[in-house]
């Protein structure tokens, strides 16, 4: 297999995630798109690890594990914020949150 198969797939997922983060109104959907981005990163890590082989493959797994843990933390806080938003505004439309408008 070519390394680029994995890397370009990850790049595609990443860009789809970026599109979702930028174009979705619903807060939960924005968070899901962020998960796509993070998954692209994990795929990259594992692919590079497999390419280097040996100890590097193990280290790549460790790093990917940490990324997953951080992603879990991010979803936890992110959903809490969305929930808070819903409670205060009865809506989870992130376009409504524009208190910093110039």
């Amino acid at each position, binding site marked *: 297999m070519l390394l680029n198969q994995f890397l370009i797939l990850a790049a595609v997922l990443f860009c789809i995630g970026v599109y979702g*983060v*930028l174009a979705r109104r619903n807060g939960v959907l924005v968070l899901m798109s962020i998960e796509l981005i993070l998954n692209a990163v994990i795929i990259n890590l594992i692919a590079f690890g497999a390419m280097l082989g040996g100890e590097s493959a193990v280290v790549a797994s460790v790093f990917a594990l940490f990324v997953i843990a951080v992603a879990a933390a991010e979803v936890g806080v992110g959903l809490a914020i969305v929930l808070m938003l819903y409670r205060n505004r009865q809506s989870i439309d992130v376009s409504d*949150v524009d208190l910093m408008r*110039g």
Partner: protein
Amino acid sequence: MLEQVWVIPLVPAISFFLILFVGKHLPRKGAEIGVVAVGASLVLSLVTAAQWIHRTNEARDAVDGGGHAAGFLGAVLAGAEYAVVEPVVRTVTWWQSGGEVIEAGTLLDGLSAMMIVVVTLVSFLVHLYSVSYMEGDRRFTHFFAALSLFTASMLLLVLSNNLLQLLVGWELVGLCSFMLIGHWWEEKPNSDAALKAFLTTRTGDIGLLVGIAVIFFGAGRTFDILEINQAALGGGVSDLVLLVAASCLLLGVIGKSGQFPLHTWLPDAMAGPTPVSALIHAATMVVAGVFLVARLYPVFWEGFDIAAGGLNPMALVGGITVVIAAVLAFVQNDIKKVLAYSTISQLGYMVMGLGVGAWVAAVFHLFTHAFFKALLFLGSGSVSHAVHSFDMKSDMGGLREHMPHTYRTFLIGSLALAGIFPLAGFWSKDEILLGAGANGYEAFMVVGLIGGALTAAYMTRCVYLTFFGEYRGHGHPHESPALITGPLWVLAGLAVVAGFLNAVPFGIHLFTDWVEPTFAFPPVAHPEFSVPLAVVATLLALAGIGAGAGYYFRNLGPHGLTERNVWARRGHTLLWNRYYLDHLYTGVIVGSIKGPVARAANWVNQRVIDGVVNAAGVGSRQAGQWVYDKIDQRVVDGIVNGSATGAGETGGFLRRMQTGRVQNYGALLFGATAVLGLTLVILI
């Protein structure tokens, strides 16, 4: 004991948790735990210091062949050869990661022994004082818990043997400072002041972090302070690395020790309770920056090439701070703000002293200043306890008769601060000036002399407004209880005698013998005492007092000058607005970052487009009546309207960019990143 100094910070750390968890249920609401714990720390620190002194004496006796009796007088050695006294280091493995072993540990030498004595002593007195001062406060228990945590963190900072642990202590004292400034956070100004202090010092801490990283790699992957010092002196580190490291660390010092231009947080920090101001914002935390420089002196010595004389960034920062803060102290009506600016100015002396190579003098000034400035702050707290205000002009005056103890101790503190012989401030300040003169920094000696005269004058004003004249407040002020005046007298006693530890003309240089490192330390000069300089300094201080006294007591001099003279009024306004530094920070810098695009667009609209429009308008007027119908009505109006519409649309478009929507910003961010990446791809 020298090996076991880790106990000293541990005691107040345990006390912090005890107070937090069980303090509320105790008869004195947790204060007793704090007082006992810090008292225990104080005793341990004194024992440690005594043992350290013993160690230095022994080492020195060994060099002299045992010619002198050990003990106190044994150290009084005029011109003796300096023996190397090795610091006591004890480390354990803190953590290891990826092959890097990071150690934690204690480093005990003269400097840290002196610091732990100062910290625990002032902290103990402040604890005692607070028992009475804070009585009935709504967060009494939290207050004592935070004081304990602060004491523990400060001790951790001064005892640490590596920069990482020092950084932990550094940030912890910053946190305690934040909590205690905002102790009464229900009032908006207090929580604002706490935030300002936190964020301003954090600005400097960026420099500290970068500096530590630079030095870690520069000195060969080590955080160990002694190793870094040896590497810096041994020439193993390039000059450029040392210069960068020293500059970055200096930024941290500027933030923490309230140096120009990041000093603006310290006066606002006076929003906290007065004992906090005495402990944290006068005697201990704010000198952490000075301590850092003293600790890593070889880095600064080599980095800024201090031995060369003339001018260097550190001396410059200190010198500027000395004068501008002293001048600002004149226009303050809040007694604590006078003392705050005075603290900034005195910290400037210390930084300047270190900058001109007068290490012992600067550290000695740190030592004496801790006592008399804590005394002054606690005295101002005692006054406010009686009159329930800090405003000297509207609520004080004539307190001399009502509060004899406070008055006498405050006067002693003021004279010590002004540098009147033979009080503590005289000896230490004089040594700084002496060092500046002897090491080729004559300009800074003059700055120091001017600062001394200013100090004497503003303290005269402060004492006059508080204790003399007619009482201007309400009610009947009365002397504070013994728990408040007791610490005042102890500190007053120290303010009188502390200077004699290093009374060089009398052949006493105990402080130098005990505190100055002999291991991994640059060859700093020890200038001879100069009688003319001391006389000039004293005369200038007396002149300052005389000018202040003449102005206030005898009502001489140009009163009401600010009303009559426009320049005097402008100067006053400039000082009143603190050189507009706060305006600069919030208005210009924050503002310009907030909306540079909008501002630029506005500027273009106002100047360029309006200018074109105006020019067109004037030109068309002059063209005469006959073109009015044809050109003016159609063409020019068209241009005018067109340009106005264009301007409006440009502004509108640029304004639309500031939508406040995260996703808009996100699109810009990702788009810009992609464009940047594309540029790099094309270029490389």
